């Protein structure tokens, strides 16, 4: 019992929660945008892998960290464009296209990675983002180091939650996006082309997924290795359902999830006799539990996975 209290009262634990939550926040916001406009994007796992690789490669070749993040966002948007081109105007199966994007993007990242570093046995490292202490605020006891001594991408992710919530619920663009997810015919009748709106929104969402991946190589680890995304993308898909497609709840979901992850990591080191694999299973099982709990409550965007063709009902 004391062990658990020790973990819960340590600054390191709570500081880690925010760090671990960051890629989940970015990825979940990306999925949320795509689904709010009516398209499932199972490409996330591969887009995150590519973002992780290209972010690392950009910095490794001498560019600065922000250029790395930008490269990941750009490549994410390009994969988003591919996903959108196949699922929106052509109306192909969103399940299979997304899986195809994931398989393509991840194998393509391994291919590019191997071309860039053909022989290295241990992955070459880069200098990652350093924590940035907000002057003044980071001196507050306990809360200061937890909240205000994070890296720039973490602040960015938290800021994006607010920006996206404001955009979705307070701007005409957000209204059009939410409306397209519910009823694209109504949007079309308003003189807005739902096809282009979907394509644009999917690209923006996929760019966020790319940045989520780049966070792994540019902040959390300092190198790229295959399979490093480890299902984080799929967990984001589950988190969107848990969040009932709302940005604020997505933040809560990601933080809750990161809390369990940080907690199990620390518990692993102090509890003996329990196989470590059981702890590692926890995030995946929790995601499934979240899906079960929310399945009844979930109010899915009505046109999710319904392709829109003008003049067809």
């Amino acid at each position, binding site marked *: 019992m004391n062990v658990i209290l020790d973990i819960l009262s340590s600054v390191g634990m709570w500081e880690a929660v925010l760090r671990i939550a960051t890629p989940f926040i970015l990825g979940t916001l990306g999925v949320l945008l795509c689904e709010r406009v009516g398209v499932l994007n*199972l490409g996330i796992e591969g887009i995150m892998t590519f973002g992780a690789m290209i972010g690392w490669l950009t910095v490794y070749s001498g560019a600065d960290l922000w250029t790395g993040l930008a490269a990941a966002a750009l490549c994410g948007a390009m994969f988003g464009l*591919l996903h959108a081109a*196949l699922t929106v105007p*052509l109306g*192909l*199966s969103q*399940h*299979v*296209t997304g*899986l*195809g*994007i994931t*398989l*393509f993007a991840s*194998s*393509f990242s*391994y*291919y590019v990675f*191997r*071309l860039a570093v*053909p022989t290295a046995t241990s992955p070459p490292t880069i200098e990652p983002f350093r924590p940035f202490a907000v002057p003044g605020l980071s001196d507050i006891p306990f809360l200061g180091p937890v909240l205000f001594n994070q890296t720039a991408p973490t602040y960015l992710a938290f800021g994006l939650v607010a920006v996206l919530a404001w955009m979705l619920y307070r701007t005409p663009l957000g209204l059009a996006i939410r409306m397209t997810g519910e009823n694209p015919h109504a949007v079309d009748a308003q003189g807005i082309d739902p096809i282009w709106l979907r394509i644009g929104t999917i690209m923006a969402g996929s760019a966020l997924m790319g940045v989520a991946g780049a966070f792994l190589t540019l902040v959390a680890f300092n190198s790229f290795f295959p399979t490093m995304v*480890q*299902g984080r993308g*799929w*967990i984001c*898909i*589950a988190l969107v*359902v848990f969040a009932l497609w709302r940005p604020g709840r997505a933040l809560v979901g990601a933080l809750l999830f990161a809390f369990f992850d940080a907690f199990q990591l620390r518990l692993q080191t102090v509890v003996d006799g329990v*196989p470590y*694999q*059981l702890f*590692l*299973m926890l995030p*995946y*099982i929790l*995601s*499934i539990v979240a*899906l*079960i709990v929310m*399945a*009844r409550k979930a109010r899915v965007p009505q046109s999710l996975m319904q392709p829109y*063709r003008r003049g067809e009902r």
Partner: protein
Amino acid sequence: MRFERRESGSAALTILAPLGAIGVALIVAGVLITIAGANAFEAYRLILKGAFGSRLGITETFTRATPLILTGLAAAVAFRARLWNIGGEGQFYLGALAVTAFGLFPGLSGAPAPVAILACLVVGAMAGSALLLVPVALKIRFGVDEVVTTLLLNFVAILFVSMMIEGPLKDPLAFGWPQSVPVPDAALLPQLVERSRLHAGLLVALALAVVVWWVQARTVFGMRARATGLNARAAAFAGVPLGRTLTLVACLSGGLAGLAGAVEVMGIKGYVTTDLSPNYGYSGIVIAMLANLNPIGVIGAALFSAVMFVGADSMSRALGIPSYIADVTVALSLLTMLVAVFLTQYRVRR
């Protein structure tokens, strides 16, 4: 530009679609090889030579195709009923693990080979089915989307395998390496060709492709599964028991993926490690789509993937192009196949 549904599908287009899709994927991959500084034609010549140029190459290609046929069938039967089983990878591992666990059963080592082999195959298939029944039950009971749950269970299954082969099923004679106890000799699949790794699992896979085709085309269950996939609501109105049909489809699909793992461990490795499968489960999805979900077509699609994987290994050694190009090509062919199928159903009008 707009798309107009074709009045009737044409047989020629249906056959040309996968060939065209593979062709376009090979062209794009050729561009990637050229960018990497090698001659794409030379690369493809070496891939074909690696896969077919020698006795070893040919047997390796068919050895590699064996689990791919089974995971391809697993995805094809599920997708036909619109059950999105993306959990083939996890079912593969549980199937393999179940065989080695069952091998500890003392009665097995004394049993005659055909009995032991059959029992092990059944156990492997049952383990795969059991894993898929969890998400399917959640889908039927709570309406939880099975795509995400099957995907997440892949990670749980592989961690479970890792836990078992470092724990109760660990081989004490493996010098501390995490690998499972070996499959008993009586349950090892016989070789098909001397001095090669090709084993009787290939015959099992080919026979099952025919069986699955027959079940889908000629039985009431097959008809119900197809009806569920085409329009679940209409099928329910026509009296198809949706829950029972989906459960049976899950048993079949998970069973085939579990069997793939069982066959791989009984035919080649003899024991389970956590790198037993180079993404056989995920490749099965591509293979099913390339085959247009046709069980007989799965054989051809699995052979295509096997040629790419085996050939790319030897091409990579000669030219220095990463062998991941095979994965890229196979993944690309899934995307191009989707477009090709679309073009067989719609025509483009200005």
